[in-house]
C-alpha cells in the first residue's frame, strides 16, 4: 500500500475528520454550559459542518467513480472499492445527512451533548462505509464494532429516560451475543481454511468438500449478521430499541445500521460463502418466510408507532431476504442484488421520512402513541399527509416508490424459482396494510385529540421534502435507479 492509494479512503477520511471536528468544536462552543445561546450556536455549528462534511464525502465518492472505472483493491484484498462499495457508501452518507436533518432540533434535548450526537452519526457511518468495502474477516469485524459501539451509545442517549437506558442495555447484550456468534463462525471458517481473506476462503471451500463444520460456520456467520439486519433469530432487540431510543436515533438505526449490515452480509455471501450458495439459499428462504410473517403478525397489535415500525422493519428485512435468496442462483444473482440495492435506498429514504413525521408528532404531542395522533390532519395537514404517504409507500401501494422496490424483489424471487416465497410475501404484504393504515386512519379521523398545530423547523421540513421527492416522482424514473443498482450488482461478481 502506497500513500497514493490513500485516495481510495478519501470519503472515509473526510467523514472521520468531520466527526472529530464536530465533537471538538461543539465542546469549545459550549464552554459556558447552560447558556441557551451557546447551545444554539454549538448545534448550528455541528449540524452545518456535519452536512458539509457529508456533501464533501459524496463528492469524493463521485470523484472515485470517475477516476477508476474498474474495481480497485488498494490494500491487497482487505479493502475493495467496487461499484457495490461505492453505492453502499453513497446511500450511507445520504442517510447520515437526512438523519442530521431529522435530529437537528431534537438534539437540543441532548444538551450539552448535541454535538456528540451528530459526531456519533458521522463516526457510525464510517464504520458502515468500511463494512461495505471489507473483504477480510478481521477488518469486517472491526468495522462492524465501530458501527455497533457508536450505536450502543446513541440508543442510550436519553440517559435520564428509563426506556432509552433499557433499550441501550438490551441492544448491547443482544449485540454482544450476536458478535460472539459471528466470531465463532469466522473462527471456524478460519480454522477450516487457514485464511482470513474472504476470496481466499472461498477458493479453499470450493476445492474441498462440504463438511458439517462448514455448515455450522455458515449458519453462525449468517446468524451473527442477522443481528444487524434485524432478521430471525436475532431480531428481538428491534422493537425495544426502536421504541426506547430517541426518534432520530431510531431513524438512524432503522436505516443506516441496517443498510451497513446488508452491505456486509451481501459481501460475505458473494465472496467467502459463494461456494455454499445452495445451502444458504435454502436457509435464507426459510428465514425470510419466518421473519416477514413474524414481523407483520406482531406489528398488528402494537399501539406505539415506533414499536410498530420496529416490527414492520423486521418484516421488511424478510422481504429484502427474498432478493438474497434470488442471489443464490447464478442467473438471477444480478437481478436479486439489483433489487436489494434499490430496496435499501427506497426503504431508507421512506423510513427516514416516516420517522421525520413521527419526530414532528412527538415534538408536538409528546408521545408516539397511535391514539395520540388522532385527528392530526385537522391541525397539521402537511405533516399528516407526508406521514401518510410515507406509510403507504412502506405498505407498497402503487404508484408510490415502495411498491416498485417490493415488486422487484418479488420478481427476483419468482424468477429464481421461489414462487412459494413470493406467495408468502404477497400475503404478508396484504396483512401489513392493516397496521400501516391504522396509523393513517388515526391521522385522518374526525375525533381529534386536543392540541395546537405542530411546530416543524426548516431542517425537518427538508428531511420530509427529501423523503417525498424520493417517494412520489421517482417512480416515473425508477428505471434509472434500477439500472444503476443492477450495474452495482453486476460489479460485485467481478473478482
Amino acid at each position, binding site marked *: 500500500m502506497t500513500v497514493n492509494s490513500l485516495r481510495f479512503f478519501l470519503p472515509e477520511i473526510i467523514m472521520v475528520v468531520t466527526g472529530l471536528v464536530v465533537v471538538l468544536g461543539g465542546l469549545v462552543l459550549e464552554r459556558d454550559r447552560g447558556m441557551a445561546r451557546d447551545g444554539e450556536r454549538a448545534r448550528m455549528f455541528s449540524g452545518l459542518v456535519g452536512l458539509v462534511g457529508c456533501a464533501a464525502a459524496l463528492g469524493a465518492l463521485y470523484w472515485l467513480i470517475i477516476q477508476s472505472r474498474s474495481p480497485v483493491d488498494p490494500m491487497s484484498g482487505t479493502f475493495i472499492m467496487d461499484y457495490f462499495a461505492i453505492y453502499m457508501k453513497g446511500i450511507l452518507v445520504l442517510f447520515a445527512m437526512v438523519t442530521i436533518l431529522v435530529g437537528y432540533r431534537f438534539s437540543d434535548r441532548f444538551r450539552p451533548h448535541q454535538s456528540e450526537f451528530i459526531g456519533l452519526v458521522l463516526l457510525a457511518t464510517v464504520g458502515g462505509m468500511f463494512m461495505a468495502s471489507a473483504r477480510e474477516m478481521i477488518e469486517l469485524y472491526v468495522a462492524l464494532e465501530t458501527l455497533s459501539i457508536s450505536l450502543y451509545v446513541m440508543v442510550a442517549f436519553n440517559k435520564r429516560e428509563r426506556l432509552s437506558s433499557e433499550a441501550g442495555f438490551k441492544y448491547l447484550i443482544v449485540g454482544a451475543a450476536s458478535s460472539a456468534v459471528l466470531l465463532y463462525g469466522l473462527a471456524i471458517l478460519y480454522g477450516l481454511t487457514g485464511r482470513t481473506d474472504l476470496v481466499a476462503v472461498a477458493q479453499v471451500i470450493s476445492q474441498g468438500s462440504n463438511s458439517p463444520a462448514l455448515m455450522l460456520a455458515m449458519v453462525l456467520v449468517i446468524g451473527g449478521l442477522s443481528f444487524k439486519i434485524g432478521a430471525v433469530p436475532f431480531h428481538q432487540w428491534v422493537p425495544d430499541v426502536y421504541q426506547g431510543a430517541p426518534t432520530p436515533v431510531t431513524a438512524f438505526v432503522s436505516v443506516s445500521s441496517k443498510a451497513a449490515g446488508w452491505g456486509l452480509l451481501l459481501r460475505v455471501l458473494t465472496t467467502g460463502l459463494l461456494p455454499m450458495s445452495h445451502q444458504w439459499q435454502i436457509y435464507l428462504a426459510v428465514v425470510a418466510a419466518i421473519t416477514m410473517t413474524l414481523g407483520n403478525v406482531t406489528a398488528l397489535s402494537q399501539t406505539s408507532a415506533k414499536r410498530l415500525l420496529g416490527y414492520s422493519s423486521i418484516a421488511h428485512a424478510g422481504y429484502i431476504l427474498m432478493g438474497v435468496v434470488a442471489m443464490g442462483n447464478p442467473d438471477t444473482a444480478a437481478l436479486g442484488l439489483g433489487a436489494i440495492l434499490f430496496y435499501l435506498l427506497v426503504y431508507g429514504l421512506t423510513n427516514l421520512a416516516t420517522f421525520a413525521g413521527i419526530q414532528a408528532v412527538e415534538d408536538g404531542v409528546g408521545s408516539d402513541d397511535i391514539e395520540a395522533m388522532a385527528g392530526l390532519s385537522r391541525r397539521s395537514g402537511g405533516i399528516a399527509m407526508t406521514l401518510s404517504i410515507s406509510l403507504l409507500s412502506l405498505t407498497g401501494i402503487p*404508484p408510490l416508490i415502495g411498491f*416498485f422496490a417490493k415488486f422487484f424483489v*418479488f*420478481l427476483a424471487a419468482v424468477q429464481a424459482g421461489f*414462487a412459494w416465497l413470493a406467495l408468502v410475501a404477497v400475503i404478508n404484504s396484504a396483512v401489513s*396494510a392493516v397496521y400501516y*393504515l391504522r396509523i393513517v*386512519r388515526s391521522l385522518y379521523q374526525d375525533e381529534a385529540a386536543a392540541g395546537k398545530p405542530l411546530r416543524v423547523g426548516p431542517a425537518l421540513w427538508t428531511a420530509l421534502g427529501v423523503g417525498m421527492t424520493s417517494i412520489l416522482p421517482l417512480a416515473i424514473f425508477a*428505471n434509472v435507479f434500477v439500472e444503476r443498482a443492477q450495474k452495482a450488482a453486476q460489479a460485485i461478481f467481478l473478482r
Partner: protein
Amino acid sequence: MTLHMLVTVAAAVNNITGATAPPATSSAPQFLVSVIVWFPLLGALVVMLLPNRGEQDHGNIRNAALFFTAIPLVVAFLANFSTWTELGVAYSGGFKFEENYKWLGAFGAQYHVGLDGISLPLVWLSTILFFVAVLASMGQKKRVKEYFVLLLVLDVGVTGVFTAMDLFLFFIFWEIELIPMFLLILIWGGPRRSYAAWKFLLFTIGASAFLLLGILILYFKAGGTTFDMQTLSQAKLAPELAAVLFWLFFACFAIKLPAFPLHTWLPDAHVEAPTPVSVLLAGILLKMGGYGIIRICVGFFPGAVQKYSLAILTFAVVSILWGSFAALVQDDMKRLVAYSSVAHMGFVLLGVAALNTIALNGAVLQLFAHGLITGCLFLLVGLIYDRTHTRSIKELGGLAQKTPYLAVAWVVAAFASAGLPGFIGFIAEFEIFIGSFSAHKVGTFLAVFGVVLSAGYLLWMLERVFFGALKEAWHKLKDPGPLELGYMVGMLTLVFLFGVAPKVLTQLINYGLAPLTSRIPGGGA
C-alpha cells in the same frame, strides 16, 4: 314488451354479428388518453394548493373540481367524435389513440395506454359519473378540500384501469383506487363507516394479492420480457397453467364485481358511503371487476373460461337470485339498491359464461347500463335522504304528493333498472339472455327470474315510498332544486337515448370484442 321493441333489438343484434368495417385511418393527437387520465390529478394538485378558510374558498374548490372532471368528459366525447358520425368504425381496427413510452425497460413494463371498443364506453361512463358525482357533492361541507382531492385521485385510478394496455400499468392504476376510496368511506361515511371502510379495504387488498400473483406468474411463464397485454394474451400456456391463472384473476375480479359469495363488503360499503361516493362505487368501481373479467379472463384464457363456464354460470345464477331475494327484504333503500347491484352484476357473469359474441356484447353493455342506472338510483336515494334523513322504506310513504318530480324520476329510473324496454338496461339483458340461452338453457331459465324479481322489489319499494297515505312527518317536503333535477334529467336522458339507439354502443363494443371472440375455441359465434 312490445313486438316493435323486439324487432328493433333483433335488428341491432343482427347488425352486430354482420358487422364488417373498412380499416380506419386517423391522425388523431397521441396524448388524448393521457389527458383524460391525468387531468384529474392536475386538478387534485390545484385543489390542494387552493386556500381553504371560508365558504368562499370552498366554492372555489368545488368549482375547480368540477372543471377538472368536466374537461376529461368533454375530451372523451369530442375525441371520439368519429364514433358518433360513423358509428364506431374508427374502432374497427382495434386500439386507437395509443401511447407507448418506455418506462421500466429492465422489466419490459411500458407506459402504454389506448382505447378500444370495450374500454371506450367505460371511459365515457367514468367521465360522466365523476362529473355528476362532483355535481352531487356541491353540498359537501365537511373537510371540503380533502374530499375533492381524494375524489380526483380516485378518478385517475379508475380511468387508468380502463385505458391501460400494459399489465403492470394496469395493476398500478388498479391499486390507486384503494386508498382514496377507503378514506372517502372512513371520513365522510355514515354511522358504521369505520367497519365498512375496513371491510372494503380487506376485501380489496385480498383481491389485489390474487391479481399481483396472477400477473407475476403470467409474466414469467410467458417469457418474462414484457407486460404488454396484447402480447401476453397471445402467450402459449399449458391448459393447466391457464386454468390456475384464470382462477387467480377471476378471484380478484369476482371480489370487485362482486359475485356471490364474495359480495359481503358491498352492501356495507355502499350503505355507509356518502351519496356521490356510492354512485362511484356502484357506477364505476364494480365495473373494474367486470372489465377485468372480460379483458383478462376472457381475453387471455378463453379456453379456461370455456372449461369452467358451468362454474361461472353457477356464480352468476346464485348472485342474481341471492341479490334479488336479498333486495326484496331490505328496509333500507340504499341497501336494496346495493343488493340489486349484486344481481345485475350477476348478469355480466352470465354473459361471460355463455362466451359468445352476443352475450359478451351484452355483458359489456350491461356494465355501461348498470353504471348509469344504478348511479341514478343512488343519487335518487341520496335526494330522499337529504330531505327526510331516513332511508327506511317503512318510515316513508306517499312522497309523490309532495315531490312529484322526484317521484317521476324515481319511477323512470326504477323502470330502467327493472329492464323495461326503451331503456339501455333492457338491451343489455336481452342480449345476454339471447346469447346465454343457446349455451346454458337451465341456467338462463333460472336467471330470468332475476328480472322478474327486480321488477318486484323496485315496484314494491316505489309503492311503499311514493304512494299510499302521506305520513304526518313529510308534509313540508319539497321537490329537489334545479341543480339536482338537472343532473337527474341528464342521466336519465342518456339512459333513454342509448336505450332507443343502442347500435352506437353495441357496434362499438363488437369491434372491441372481435379480437377476443376470434380466439375462443370453437368460434364463439
